[in-house]
């Protein structure tokens, strides 16, 4: 059974893909990107920060708040920034991903200090809030 939070990650990948970005979700951390693959956007594994059961007449729901790190990598700083800006604007313009999630909140961003010679990367951390049925974390309530 796949978790709903992975479905959310899939929605993020799909959103970035509609922007023309190469979004990679299952790239191993130690499988380094090569220059011909760039520009690319890494959608990291989610970091779960909170799950809360909500009482309700329809059986209630489970409220999830998960953090995701999106890394925009490119061979020029300008392209990395452009992809970062495009993604942030698109996510804020469609903060519910078409009604699939409650909302998306930007949490943090930063450049990578270890890159910079011929690879540039900017990381955007977001928090996504969404609902599942209680005791069923595999179904995304929309």
């Amino acid at each position: 059974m796949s978790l709903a939070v992975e479905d959310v990650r899939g929605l993020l990948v799909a959103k970035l893909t509609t922007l023309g970005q190469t979004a990679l979700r299952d790239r191993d951390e130690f499988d380094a990107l090569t220059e011909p693959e760039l520009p690319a956007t890494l959608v990291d594994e989610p970091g779960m920060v909170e799950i809360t059961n909500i009482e309700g007449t329809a059986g209630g729901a489970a409220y999830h708040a998960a953090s995701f790190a999106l890394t925009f990598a490119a061979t020029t700083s300008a392209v990395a920034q452009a992809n970062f800006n495009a993604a942030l604007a698109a996510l804020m313009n469609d903060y519910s991903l078409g009604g699939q999630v409650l909302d998306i909140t930007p949490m943090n961003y930063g450049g990578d200090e270890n890159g910079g010679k011929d690879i540039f990367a900017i990381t955007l951390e977001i928090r996504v809030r969404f609902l599942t049925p209680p005791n069923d974390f595999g179904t995304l309530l929309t």
Partner: protein
Amino acid sequence: MSDLESLTPEMFATVANITGERITYIPQGQAALLPKAHVTYGDEIVDIGAGQAVQQDITVSVSKLALPWMPRSADRVRVGQLPGVTFYPATPREDSSGRDWVFDLKVVR
């Protein structure tokens, strides 16, 4: 009478000439130079937030006799192993002997 100190610059230049690799160094607004240099090729893996990426990591060492001024980022460099790629010098510094310029290469995009 010559002493070792007075011979050392020429010795460095001779060693570079025999063991070095011909590079093309184009000072901004001037004709290209073709000094012999020691080029260290290789890639490095860098962390990029959620993952890693491979980037080139080339270092050039060239005698000050062949290149009498400190390399500048406006200059252009080509090396034999990567034909068709134009670089510019980055982070120029002296080597420990004070007789060579050492600099990294960045791709001109």
